[in-house]
């Protein structure tokens, strides 16, 4: 159940997308996400979808696996679609009782739906092909200029990478504790909201205890290995742009130019 959430989970494969420098992927993804929101029109979405499909194809992540990442947002997606469809004013296409569906509403709903789906798929593709460590590494690099204004960039990146690393562990732990309490006759499903919330106490307390224990152990282990923050720290595998990264940047630029042209003139 809980395991369906793919965000922040790495999909092991050997592909050109996996091998790209994480900075390239991070910047590329950001450009992509921004492009989805600045421009509209059917042709823009066709271009954006094809670009994403190409990347998914290159990444060797099975398409069905990508689609699974949409499951958690299915509800939000439906909700947005319905709201947009029913509450946008314009030329009436169809009307029944209090509901009217307008041409503009349909268009708006379609645009929103496309955006959301591409948004999630796009960002999922990045997290599926980049390990959390490399991702935070990239963020640290890209945020370096902020050091000038005394932002603790390294510490933020370290906290993020630890948090990301622990998400799957905590999810698994939750699953395990829930099962253990179910075996003791717990019931998480029946009853009203208050009863349901109360039934989570036997899950949350052990979960917190275990999270604190893990945090404590990790802190000890880091200190035992003389970790003392970012100052003077070198990297085992420093990030380095390769030829394929320049090709990738070039393709992102082409894509962006394409979208701008199509958005403006089509």
């Amino acid at each position, binding site marked *: 159940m809980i*395991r369906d959430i793919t965000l922040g989970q790495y*999909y*092991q*494969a050997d592909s050109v997308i996996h091998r790209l420098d994480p900075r390239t992927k991070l910047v590329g993804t950001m450009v992509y996400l921004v492009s989805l929101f600045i421009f509209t029109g059917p042709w823009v979405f066709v271009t954006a979808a094809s670009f994403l499909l190409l990347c998914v194809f290159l990444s060797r992540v*099975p398409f*069905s*696996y990508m689609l699974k990442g949409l499951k958690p947002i299915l509800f939000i997606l439906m909700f947005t679609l319905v709201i947009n469809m029913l509450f946008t004013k314009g030329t009436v296409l169809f009307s029944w009782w209090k509901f009217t569906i307008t041409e503009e509403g349909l268009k708006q709903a379609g645009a929103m739906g496309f955006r959301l789906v591409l948004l999630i798929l796009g960002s999922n593709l990045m997290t599926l092909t980049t390990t959390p460590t490399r991702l935070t590494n990239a963020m640290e690099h890209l945020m370096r200029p902020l050091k000038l204004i005394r932002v603790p960039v390294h510490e933020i990146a370290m906290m993020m990478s630890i948090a990301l690393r622990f998400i799957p562990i905590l999810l698994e732990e939750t699953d*395990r*504790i829930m*099962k*253990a*309490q*179910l*075996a*003791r*006759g*717990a*019931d998480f499903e029946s009853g009203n909201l208050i009863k349901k919330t109360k039934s989570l*106490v*036997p899950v949350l*307390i*052990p979960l917190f*205890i*275990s999270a604190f224990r893990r945090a404590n152990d990790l802190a000890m282990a880091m200190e035992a290995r003389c970790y003392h923050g970012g100052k003077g720290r070198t990297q085992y595998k420093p990030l380095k742009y390769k030829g394929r990264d320049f090709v990738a940047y070039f393709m992102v630029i082409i894509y962006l130019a394409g979208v701008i042209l199509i958005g403006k003139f089509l």
Partner: protein
Amino acid sequence: MNEYKLIADHLIYEYNKGSAQARKALDDVSFVLRGGEFVGLIGHTGSGKSTLVQHLVALLKPDSGTIYYEGADIFEKDYNRKALRGKVGLVFQYPEYQLFEETVLSEVSYGPKNMGMDKKDAELAAYAAIKRVGLEDECFDQSPFDLSGGQKRRVAIASVLAMNPEILVLDEPTAGLDPAGRTELLDMITELKETEGITIVLVSHSMDDVAEVANRIIVMDKGKIVYDAEPVEVFRHTAELEAMGLAAPQMSYVLRDLKAAGIDVNVDAITLKAAKEEILRALA
């Protein structure tokens, strides 16, 4: 009534179905449990033991195949699975990580309360269960978090026992205990079976744990049941067991070496006591 308490019928189960990591954790597993048995479920880490025992209390649903408890299909739509978990008690691996209450007594009465007992009955059941696992009276009002590792584990076992299960399934109950704690715990489990007739399924990856106590051993490897027989019978396959990353109990090796050295002992004696007698007899 049916002689078989529980029947597992051709269970197949796969984690992460449809993804790259998919692998069958249970591959056509069938067996029966009779009342009053003491079964040792043995297998190397990752052989599917925990997956199997979670099926027994309907925490996982098989992709195909099913389980019957006292003749009723537990995966049937309106089967009362909560009640089942009272009758088939499952103690998870490292159960001390599931504790959450302020006192041992309220911790242990959580299960019986879930089974629908009122506060008083639940506490009586809890009281009895804490006694059954051999904890001292001083523990009752202590926080379970202040106890030692071995004691915590007993509290967790008591919290399942308090529901008065007919079958008690323990997933690697001795993991992480020191040798003394391990012996004590195994003795306690044996006593539960002898004095109260509870059917026991003891999961372990160590033959030495179960050789002494089980009267039947099920060996799993890569999601399949390889052997399901009496201990003596299973331990005859030492070479095959070793190929699966398991070993026969140590006594078995000692006796075999003695025999090889020309001392006429019966190599089928597997418990410490039987082996001792066998050696004394041979030397006399």
